């Protein structure tokens, strides 16, 4: 598939996963309210609303100042500060980094994001901030040292695309949904333990469809936390593919990013500076990449990033250099 087709496909799949996610939440929520809270004169889904409210509150608490928190946690330093204390060769590389970010901002038509350097030898990069104009891009020292200008441009284009596609906002919404689903499942299970089972409406007693629906709902409640996590990871992987494709559209050079990914994969050490919470923002999984090296069934389901080999193959397909069947 070419560049634009890949973008369209990734956006469609994101929508599909979000629809499934919201349907799951609605299924759990309405079932919970109908069975546990029982409707009197009107049907107000209190349980669902409360779960969504609490889930959203914790997710959106980090939305406005979250980028500061992430940058602080990774000890990222502003580029100007690092440039001031660098030697001549270092100054040139840092100047190249600033120029590359400026070029990508021009190509994307966005305001310049702030640039930060993370003091870690492992090559990695991430973007944070709730949207264009409030965004920051951070790269590790290892990335600056390992990649040449073209590859650096590919990585920066990928991060810029995360900003352009508003992925931080999407993942915050996904986190709210995961929280809401987990809360509903938790409350339902506690209700079952204490209340001795949900109340049933008198009208619906005995219908076969009602019993089947109830059984399905029970299974959903038990599996809900796992399913929520799985769906969230599916969204995360789709957005990684989309960021690769939109980044390649910015540079018009998919092979630059492909080579950068190959180099990043070869330097396969964990990025200690970046912790679990920010893992989904990075270009490559910073947690030792164990999950992403294996391509078994479970690792595919719960990894934040797609397998590197698949990403590189997709990029090569954009450059019409894929393996011909």
């Amino acid at each position, binding site marked *: 598939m070419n560049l634009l087709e890949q973008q369209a496909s990734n956006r469609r799949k994101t929508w599909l996963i979000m629809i499934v996610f919201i349907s799951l939440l609605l299924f759990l929520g309405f079932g919970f309210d109908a069975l546990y809270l029982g409707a009197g004169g009107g049907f107000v889904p209190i349980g669902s609303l409360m779960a969504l409210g609490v889930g959203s509150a914790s997710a959106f608490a980090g939305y406005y100042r979250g980028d500061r928190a992430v940058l602080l946690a990774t000890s990222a330093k502003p580029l100007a500060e690092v440039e001031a204390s660098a030697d001549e*060769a270092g100054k040139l590389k840092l*100047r*190249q980094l600033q*120029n590359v970010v400026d070029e*990508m901002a021009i190509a994307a038509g966005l305001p310049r994001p702030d640039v930060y350097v993370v003091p870690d030898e492992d090559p990695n990069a991430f973007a944070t901030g709730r949207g264009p104009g409030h965004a920051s891009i951070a790269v590790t020292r290892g990335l600056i040292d390992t990649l040449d200008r073209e590859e650096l441009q590919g990585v920066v284009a990928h991060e810029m695309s995360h900003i352009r596609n508003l992925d931080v906002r999407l993942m915050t919404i996904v986190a709210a949904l995961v929280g809401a689903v987990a809360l509903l499942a938790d409350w339902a299970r506690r209700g079952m333990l204490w209340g001795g089972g949900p109340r049933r409406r008198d009208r619906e007693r005995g219908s076969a469809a009602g019993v089947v629906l109830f059984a399905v709902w029970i299974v959903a409640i038990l599996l809900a936390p796992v399913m929520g996590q799985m769906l969230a990871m599916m969204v995360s992987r789709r957005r990684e593919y989309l960021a690769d494709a939109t980044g390649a559209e910015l540079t018009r050079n998919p092979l630059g990013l492909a080579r950068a990914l190959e180099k990043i994969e070869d330097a396969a050490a964990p990025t200690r500076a970046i912790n679990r919470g920010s893992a989904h923002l990075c270009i490559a999984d910073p947690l030792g990449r164990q999950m992403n090296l294996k391509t078994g069934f479970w690792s595919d389901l719960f990894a934040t990033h797609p397998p590197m080999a698949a990403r590189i193959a997709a990029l090569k397909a954009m450059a019409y250099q894929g393996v011909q069947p």
Partner: protein
Amino acid sequence: MCSARSARTGSITLTIISTGSTAEWQDGWRAGLVPSAIIGALALWAVASYNRLVGLRNQVLNGWRQIDVQLKRRHDLIPNLVNAVRGSMDFERDTLTAVMEARAKALTATGPADAAQKEGQLSQALGRLLAVAENYPTLKSNDNVKMLQEELSATENKVGFARQFYNDIATGFNTAQQVFPTNILANMFAFKPAELFEIAEPKDREVPTVDLSRK
């Protein structure tokens, strides 16, 4: 239960109204409900589409001006580069002079087509200078020169990306004007398609020649 009750009260209300003395419009107002909803939705769509087209048109204009911003940056940067390398590159007087002359011409361009042609020639002259500078080991190890070379290639890149962005946004604007049903609106309000940035001179499509022999 609630809905049943309100329907009953609603019908009771209607009966009271209809048996009293009423004007005909009160009976017919419900018939007008659906058409007014449709007209309302159409109006909303029209406003949203028009505003979107206006926003895109302004972005296209801005994109065009951004190219000029980058070209001006290049004009300002070139004298610095030429002065920095002039000492070491005594032998390349022709190449250096060609760059300064091309820059002077580009500054006096009249109109976009003329500017495009002259900027293209300046790009070619600069390309030759940068390629020839590879021949000078002392230049290559000079940090100032390396920084200037980086600045210059970054400026060339920025000009290129500014043109790329302009073409991307112009294509988006043209597509938005031409798809159905927005094309009806676009014709009504006389939106014109934007011109894409093109290479004016066929010569600019050729691979530039670089003479690496020392003169």
